[in-house]
């Protein structure tokens, strides 16, 4: 340990100065801004808690919140279990081609969400899209099936599954390194079935990292915006079926010009996310004491 002096502060200075100017100040400002109504970035008037009151009775906000929550749930029940399943398969001792599989599954995570949306926008097209064409060839699927008109949420789940399944798998694979080898081998020799081995040996060992991955995925999923926005041509889609919380924030702040209302939406979202993080910490702590 070096002794004190000015050195650490000099080293920290760029970070601290930029954080104060571009994080702390806007953060503080967002609290007061959420109590104002603005007309573009230049003009505003004080409205107190009116934004929050309005938010609670705004059907579009509830629509956005409902869609977003539904999407978060699909992440939890579809995407993460598949990621974990893939990681378990890949983690088999002596599996050939593990490195190749890992690389292949991970590769879509390198594609930015904008570009994923561009690709799937065409893949989901009616007659010209790959998905309908492939399903048509395989099971005689209707070529006119309208993914982006009638099945917005399903389309979002398919596209995100492609993008993030391997990304989460990498984390689960890292977590699986914590599974004590002798213990899982002993369980196998004792004739414990796969399900029992998973419940008794694997799951307890990966829970700490697993909980972290779940939290990161939930937080990320709550911030869904670009994918539906670009898939649905800069909008919320038919009947607002692709409207999400951050999309609504963007529309209110930058299309309607009310940065105050947008800030209020931002705070509600932040509250939900902090709640999720607190819940995860609590569950993790209970785990330790149990």
């Amino acid at each position, binding site marked *: 340990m070096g002794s004190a002096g000015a050195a650490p502060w000099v080293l920290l200075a760029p970070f601290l100065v930029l954080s104060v100017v*571009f994080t702390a100040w806007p953060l503080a400002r967002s609290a007061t801004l959420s109590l104002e109504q603005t007309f573009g970035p230049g003009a505003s008037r004080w409205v107190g808690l009116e934004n929050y009151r309005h938010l609670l009775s705004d059907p579009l906000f509830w629509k956005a919140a409902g869609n977003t929550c539904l999407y978060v749930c699909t992440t939890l029940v579809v995407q993460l279990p598949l990621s974990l399943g893939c990681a378990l398969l890949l983690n088999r001792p002596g599996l050939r081609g593990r490195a190749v599989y890992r690389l292949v*599954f991970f590769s879509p995570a*390198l594609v930015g969400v904008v570009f994923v949306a*561009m690709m799937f926008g065409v893949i989901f097209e009616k007659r010209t899209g*790959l998905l309908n064409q492939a399903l048509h060839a395989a099971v005689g699927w209707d070529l006119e099936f309208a993914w982006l008109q009638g099945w917005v949420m399903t389309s979002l789940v398919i596209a995100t599954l492609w993008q993030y399944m391997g990304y989460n798998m990498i984390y689960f694979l890292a977590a699986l390194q914590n599974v004590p080898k002798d213990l899982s081998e002993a369980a196998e020799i004792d004739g414990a079935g796969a399900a029992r081995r998973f419940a008794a040996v694997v799951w307890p060992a990966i829970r700490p990292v697993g909980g972290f991955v779940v939290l990161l995925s939930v937080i990320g999923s709550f911030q869904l915006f670009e994918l539906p926005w670009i898939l649905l041509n800069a909008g919320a889609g038919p009947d607002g079926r692709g409207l999400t919380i951050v999309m609504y924030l963007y529309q209110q702040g930058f299309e309607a010009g009310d940065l105050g209302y947008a800030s209020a939406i931002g705070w509600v979202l932040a509250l939900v996310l902090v709640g999720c993080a607190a819940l995860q910490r609590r569950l993790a702590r209970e785990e330790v004491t149990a």
Partner: protein
Amino acid sequence: MSGAESTRRTGWLAALGAHALLAPAALVTLVPFVWLACAAFKRNEDFFTSAFLPGGEGVLGVAWERLTLENFERLFGTLGLGRAIVNSVFLSSATAALATLISALGGYALAAFDFRGRRAVTGLVLAAIIIPPPLLIAPGYQWLFRLGLLDTFAGLILPAIAPAFGVYLFRQACASSVPGALLEAARIDGAGEARIFFGVALPLLRPMVGAFILLTFLGTWNNFISPQVVLQTPDRLPLAVAIAQLKSTYYQDYGLLMAGTLVSVLPLVVLFMSLQREFISGLTTGAVKG
């Protein structure tokens, strides 16, 4: 049949089962990439008749003469996408280099020095990590407007180069791979603080430096919402925004859209595939050690 023998036999069967599940999944993961590469060279009318390459009399049953470079000619000719590539390369490199330097300086200061206020700063860094980015969109935009930084590269780069997450990662990396005794020895030898950081600490942090540069470069390249909000002048837009705008004008020009997406995605996927070891290990460091 002895126990070991039966275990070996079921092991062989189970490995086959694992491949039977993993191989199709890997194939499905790769198909959109292959499809994208084909789509970028196709004429629009061929999207109706072929999923991948148009069928015909040529080698491999493909009508090679129907493929076209016209999509790329239009992109780089009248549509000026070359400019967007230059913008993306500049923004991503500048952000990655500066964010890595500032994070490394800060993380090193927190790990290698004992000073009054260290606990407080560490606490602030951890608190800043959990601020959800959407919360800062509206107030950040208004703040950049006041500072006169809207529609400038500075307005995009400055808020992005002091990432709390980066400081945290480098603090962890420093604690585990830069021994305090080594720094002390250099100090006793009379080396200045700058020399100790660049000559002793930074070389030991090399793996994290590499991983964090890649992570930030990728994040900036794929970022959509910040440039979408901050920039207006068409000449300044990075690929993510330029490509998304292309969709609003040429939404039925599939070949053109996919050529633009291919150009945006391919360089990164190739680059990161070749550097994947470093990248993926950096990605999971925070989760596993943290």
